[in-house]
């Protein structure tokens, strides 16, 4: 195999796939980066087995020639040395060559590196995807859905399936749901998926956060493919793959109560700053529990008490309070997470009782839902 490429072009691709490579892996070949030369471009692949990133450098794009003198072939190079070598090459022009004994020569200016590579056949085979299993959506929207749900995944390994975000697609509605069993975040958006449907596709929280970091804020769209064991997010130059969590995600929709006892309409910003202040004196090791009670038609009292430090009470005038009087305690962290994730000016909170879940939504929208379980006080 052989190709000639610009150092800067190669470097930016190398950096992308390095995000997936870990030096601590149980599969020896994964400490390497796979480099594949094809007629129409170069593909770099990195993986820690949980996520895999493929970066594609087309031979030509927008009338620019990126890669020249391509002789197809592939090789795996140890990721500890390869990126540093490319970074420090003396000139922008890089010649890359590998022989049948997996010996690699990298030339740039007067520098020549000889490296031992490994047979690319030893590298894991990433799933082959079919276009009829895919749908498309704007990257910005995908990133928003991730931000609004992924924080709620469980950090505990006791129920591994809850450490992921469950995604499903039905009737052209895409749903993301995450819960650690103390709170649940869910978001729905319409997509054009041509009737494609799937459910119980659970992406590990770690992977989905990595995806969010990897995707640039751009106007572009992302194509999403679901296979039995992996999910692929495909952008113009990058393929991001993640393995899925094995197991059945619990049916959460039936756990969301629908009878409402008290409704509070409030300004998100006011709620956030008041609860944030109250949480300052709440005990951290107990998730900063604060107490909320309604008083009349428009006043909330938010308080917390931590005997060794002190207590704080603050009254907050809200837009409206409907229904029964309410006294409830909750983790301020969960509520702040939820309010910040919702990211709208006005919210509506449906309470179903002091020991039952409450639901935070934007006032005029049903597509996003943040459900939180209160704290029981005795």
């Amino acid at each position, binding site marked *: 195999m052989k190709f000639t490429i610009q150092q800067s072009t190669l470097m930016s691709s190398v950096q992308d796939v390095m995000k997936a490579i870990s030096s601590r892996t149980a599969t020896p070949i994964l400490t390497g980066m796979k480099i594949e030369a094809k007629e129409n471009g170069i593909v770099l692949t990195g993986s820690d087995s949980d996520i895999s990133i493929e970066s594609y450098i087309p031979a030509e794009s927008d009338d620019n020639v990126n890669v020249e003198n391509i002789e197809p072939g592939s090789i795996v190079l140890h990721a500890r040395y390869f990126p540093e070598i490319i970074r420090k090459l003396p000139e922008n022009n890089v010649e890359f060559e590998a022989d049948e004994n997996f010996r690699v020569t990298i030339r740039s200016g007067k520098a020549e590196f000889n490296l031992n590579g490994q047979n690319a056949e030893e590298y894991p085979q990433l799933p082959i995807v079919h276009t009829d299993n895919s749908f498309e959506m704007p990257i910005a929207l995908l990133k928003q859905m991730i931000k609004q749900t992924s924080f709620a995944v469980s950090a505990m390994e006791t129920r591994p399936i809850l450490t992921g975000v469950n995604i499903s697609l039905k009737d052209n509605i895409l749903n993301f749901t995450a819960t650690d069993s103390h709170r649940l975040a869910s978001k729905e958006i319409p997509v054009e998926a041509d009737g494609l449907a799937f459910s119980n596709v659970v992406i590990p929280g770690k992977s989905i956060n990595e995806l969010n970091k990897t995707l640039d804020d751009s106007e572009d769209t992302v194509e999403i493919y679901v296979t039995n064991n992996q999910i692929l997010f495909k952008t113009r130059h990058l393929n991001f793959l993640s393995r899925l969590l094995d197991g059945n995600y619990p049916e959460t929709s039936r756990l969301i109560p629908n009878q409402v006892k008290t409704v509070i309409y409030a300004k998100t910003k006011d709620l956030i700053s008041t609860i*944030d202040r109250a949480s300052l*004196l709440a005990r951290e090791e107990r998730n900063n529990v604060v107490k909320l009670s309604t008083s009349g038609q428009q006043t909330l009292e938010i308080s917390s008490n931590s*005997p060794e430090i*002190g207590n*704080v009470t603050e009254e907050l005038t809200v837009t409206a309070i409907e229904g029964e009087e309410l006294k409830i305690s909750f983790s301020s962290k969960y509520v702040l997470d939820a309010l910040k994730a919702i990211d709208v000016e006005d919210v509506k909170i449906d309470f179903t*009782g002091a020991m*039952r879940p409450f639901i935070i939504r934007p006032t005029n929208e049903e597509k996003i839902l943040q459900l939180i379980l209160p704290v029981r006080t*005795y």
Partner: protein
Amino acid sequence: MVRKKNHARVIFHIDMNCFYASVEIAANPKLKGKPLAIAGDPRERKGIIVTSSYEARAKGIKTTMPLWQARKLCPELIVLKPDFDKYRAASRKIFTMLSQVTPRIQPVSIDEGYMDVTEVAAEHDPIAIAVNLQKDIFKQLQLPSSIGIAPNKFLAKMASDMKKPLGITILRKRDIPQKLWPMPIGDMHGVGVKTAEKLDKIGVQTIGDLAHADIYQLKRLLGINGERLRNRANGIDNNPVDPDAVNEFKSIGSSQTLPEDTVDPREIQKWLSILAENVERRLKRKQAAGKTIQLMLRYHDRKTITRSKKLPDYIDQKEDMIQITNDLLQKHWDGEPIRLIGITVQDAEEKKSILKQLDLFSYEKEETKAKLDHTIQALNQKYGKDVIRKSDGIHKGDTDLRTSFQKDVLMDYQKSDD
């Protein structure tokens, strides 16, 4: 100071001045003389002042004031994050020093406590004791304190508040009309904002007003607490200094030597249920619940075993205790004749400080259980729970709420004692 008469007590209340700030200054003398505040999180603009040094207070800095406001009043303010480990260590040293004067100490929080020095005062002048104690603490730990000396806890507490820092104030019964009565009612220990508002409505504005207020009117307004407050305003407080008060909630148990040694399972069952009932009653009286259950068995040969089980949830019901101790019995009883059985609930906490994060997949079950508890609690609440004042500020210290944090601190010095 009057020499001790037959039944007159000599009580100290020792209160550390600006404790957290003082500990920080002692640890870093460069801070001395500078306005210093301890606040929630100094990086956050919205942090709240937890406590501050006298230099900061002189600039108008107050507890619970938002940081941005404090910085406006005092731009050179130094702000630190609370370091409870450091405060705990300092507190432990202080109480160890107190315990060298007398074992009769009742710690009430990390930075204040009562001492009953009646016996020591028979031999030494109590004022000299107080002066030396205050000096020693300041010399050894660089921590300022105020000491109130009085014939009871209430007056001692009021006295220690009168002169800060490094004050020693004696409050005799006969000083009450001049020193105590003119004070606004809100400054009285045991009177919170809500109570003060209520009292104001019946024209009670000073402690003196309260001392002379109509007792029936007070009772109607404040329940049993009304009478207690009025007594205190008259300088009457018979509460003893109780060194064990701090241990109160750690564990609650009951044991019984059986009429005769037995291997009869029915007999053992019977006693388990009697003991569980005792423990349940005592837990409920203290409004507490515990997380660990211990079974003690003493055999005919006096060999004693204790076996305990940690529980996922707090319990206070005898049914739960019977079931768990029975499991322990089945597992650990070797069949030898039993002479004594004991049940103890450990890791006990006041119910109001017990919190449980509910779970999406099990909240419905929890709710059913709670409804039951609630009914029982409603009954308990009839019995004058309101006597306990809620904390209304940091600087005043809080005598009634005890957290595990404080308990640990307060127990610590006892540990270091033995």
